[in-house]
């Protein structure tokens, strides 16, 4: 997810709760469970005194929210951003609960954040901040409790500092406390393309369900970052033709098809898709109106909104990004018969991969790349088909169906466990 993509924090939590309310109605969630799911299990706010390079001490604010742990330890990223708020962190932890439950990995949802502007901080300052934040979280996180991961403005280096700080306090190496680590510290070799790969499994299963012929399908990728590039490359291998791509600098289009390897090479070389010789340049906004079968929004939130939703001609939209479709846009798409494969399903390959990383660290046995990808395929295929069947049974959108599957699954665990004491 990108740093620029921030909506009003208060409304994020409101809309997370609204989504839950909707699912609750759909599946007749018992009121006691519903009320419990509206609130996080536990939220910690900490002050993070940090020595800056000029010798001064600044105190940042950090949060960690554990929304639910009925199905297992909490799982979710840590983001560094000036606009982080406690409400946003809570809402994101709630979404993680649903995402993990949807793909049936044994996790609850968590999320963390520090209110800071990493763009203005040195590496040393970021490291100081990270290590102190982790020290404050120490009683709350752990391989059995809560396993952070990278998020906005955090990366494998930050995860390595986290792993090191935690391990030093425990007195022994504890790689399973965090995922998204460097491979050298027990990270997963297949992590890079995981989100894109999961998205392509989702598309493949839905094409099969809808009887779409891969060879006659055309697709468009909006956003050519990690997820978008992997999705383009892997989907093209299954037969569909890539016809347009956009990134933050511009967009290109060729109705006869864009050579995926060539555009990947061009992007790697120049940093952008603009100026690619094998296609015409178009505006970033025009990409939504292109006649195609599959549209993959893989960039920012709210890319598909009220004003452009009506132009979309695709049959399916696979949300590789988080929240690329506004609720108003989704209504328009639903009415127009466009099937939206929701983010908590279409981009769950990332967290599934995180789960595999953790499972390997916990069992102290490292899998081959093929084993990892086979398992990813099994997890995604099962989840997509469960959601599709729910969609047919409840006669609702795929997003509602995904929420129904996810919330129902967490509710089942919560009911079995009951309330202590």
């Amino acid at each position: 997810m990108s740093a620029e993509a921030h909506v009003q924090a208060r409304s994020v939590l409101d809309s997370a709760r609204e989504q839950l309310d909707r699912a609750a109605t759909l599946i007749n969630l018992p009121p006691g469970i519903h009320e419990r799911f509206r609130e996080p299990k536990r939220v910690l706010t900490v002050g993070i005194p940090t020595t800056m390079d000029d010798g001064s001490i600044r105190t940042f604010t950090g949060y960690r929210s554990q929304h639910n742990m009925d199905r297992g330890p909490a799982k979710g990223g840590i983001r560094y951003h000036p606009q982080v708020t406690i409400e946003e962190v809570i809402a994101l932890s709630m979404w993680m609960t649903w995402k993990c439950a949807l793909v049936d990995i044994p996790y609850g949802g968590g999320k963390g954040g520090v209110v800071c502007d990493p763009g203005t901080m040195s590496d040393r300052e970021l490291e100081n901040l990270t290590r102190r934040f982790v020290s404050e979280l120490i009683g709350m996180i752990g391989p059995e409790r809560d396993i952070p991961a990278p998020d906005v403005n955090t990366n494998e280096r930050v995860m390595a500092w986290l792993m090191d700080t935690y391990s030093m306090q425990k007195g022994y190496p504890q790689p399973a406390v965090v995922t998204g680590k460097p491979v050298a510290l027990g990270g997963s070799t297949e992590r890079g393309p995981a989100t894109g790969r999961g998205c392509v499994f989702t598309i493949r299963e839905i094409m099969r369900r809808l009887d779409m012929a891969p060879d006659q399908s055309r697709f468009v990728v909006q956003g050519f970052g990690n997820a978008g590039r992997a999705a383009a490359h892997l989907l093209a291998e299954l037969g569909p033709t890539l016809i347009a791509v956009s990134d933050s600098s511009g967009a290109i289009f060729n109705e006869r098809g864009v050579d995926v390897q060539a555009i990947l090479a061009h992007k790697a070389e120049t940093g952008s898709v603009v100026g690619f010789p094998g296609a015409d340049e178009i505006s970033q906004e025009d990409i939504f109106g292109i006649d195609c079968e599959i549209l993959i929004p893989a960039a920012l939130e709210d890319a598909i909104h009220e004003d452009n939703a009506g132009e979309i001609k695709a049959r399916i939209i696979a949300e590789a990004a988080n929240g690329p479709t506004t609720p108003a846009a989704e209504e328009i798409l639903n009415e127009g018969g466009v099937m939206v494969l929701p983010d908590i399903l279409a981009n769950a390959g990332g967290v599934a991969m995180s789960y595999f990383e953790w499972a390997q660290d916990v069992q102290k046995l490292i899998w081959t790349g093929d084993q990892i990808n086979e398992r990813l395929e099994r997890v995604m295929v099962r989840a997509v088909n469960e959601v599709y069947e729910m969609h047919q049974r409840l006669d609702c959108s795929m997003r509602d169906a995904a929420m129904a599957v996810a919330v129902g699954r967490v509710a089942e665990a919560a009911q079995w466990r009951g309330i202590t004491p």
Partner: protein
Amino acid sequence: MTEVADDTSCSTNVLDSALEQLEDVAALVDLHPDVLAKLRVPKRTLTVAVPTRMDDGRLEVFTGIRVQHNMDRGPCKGGIRYHPCVTLDEVTALAMWMTWKCAVVDIPYGGGKGGVICDPTDMSVSELEKMTRRFVSELVEIIGPDQDIPAPDVNTDERVMGWLMDTYSMQKGHSVPAVVTGKPIALGGSLGRAKATGRGIVFVTREALKTRGIPIEGARVAVQGFGKVGGAFAELIEELGARVVAASDVSGGIYKADGLDIAALSEHVQRTRLIEGFDGEYEPISNEDLLALECDVLVPAALENVLTAENAGDVSARMIVEGANGPTTPEANRILLDRGIYLVPDILANAGGVTVSYFEWCQGIQKLFWSEDEVNRRLEDVMVRAYHQVHQRSETLDTDMRNGAMAVAVERVAEAILARGIHP
């Protein structure tokens, strides 16, 4: 099926006969006296008061017990039962049997057992939940994924295991699914658990038929008890080509010479819980006649003590596979042996249940869950290996399969004890 063990729950001599069994096998395999001394006594016994606020506001104090018989091969494993006749002696004997059962199939556990003296049929769900949570709180220091892993038993089920898991997890501050097995799937229960015991009996029966030179295709099977264990066994053995010619439960028995329609019968029993009223082709048969039926395999899969000194002389099966716990009395056992009837004993034949419990625990620990196929495949490996080890040991000792199973189990525990030595 949970009432199955009730009959003997109040019997007084279970510990005596468990000790007798141990001493018999000790003599048979010339067990080191130090080992025998250690195994005669449970490692640890905890008795706790379980104060429980009842629905009418009164406080009732129940007594709860957990016995850890042996932990030389791994953490303790064994169920928790709720019953008015639970006694310390009974729990101790059952814990000891769990040690042998885990050892005979070579899963890395010692034996444990627990119980609360209470009458669950007389308690509300909320009272049961409060009692369970308090009992677990009292056990919290002696149970755990690396120490002692409870499971369902008489009058306890997956719901009780869910409460146990939740209470323990809340005290630890994080989810600990591996503290208990027999959980709901939603909390980390294993696929394949429901039919595990029946499936295990099938694997053992298949191997036993092979050993005895009886083709499984067309083999005539009689099943006494058509509950979770007997029903699953009948379904699965039929898939391998055998004919289930007779089945019975508390409501009566049915017989058909060329094989009952097991799929239809299972569907009927699942719906109505009883064989009675089954709408298929059959002749009625009494329980006694079923036990005396001429067949290849007789599987008592219900109560204890169904084969006794009185009816053992009438048994006309070529082979008995004990699906239930203790279906054969010691006198009956002697008579059957004298008559040359091959018998596969309970601690081997019905160990499929505890084996899949072990798989559930493994999956909880490694946080990675297996498909049902994988669970079944692994179960097959364990049961087939165990059967042949017991068969071989009974041949080298020139004894029967029950003695052979006890010998394999006790020797395996003894080896661990001797290798570890006595601390300090």
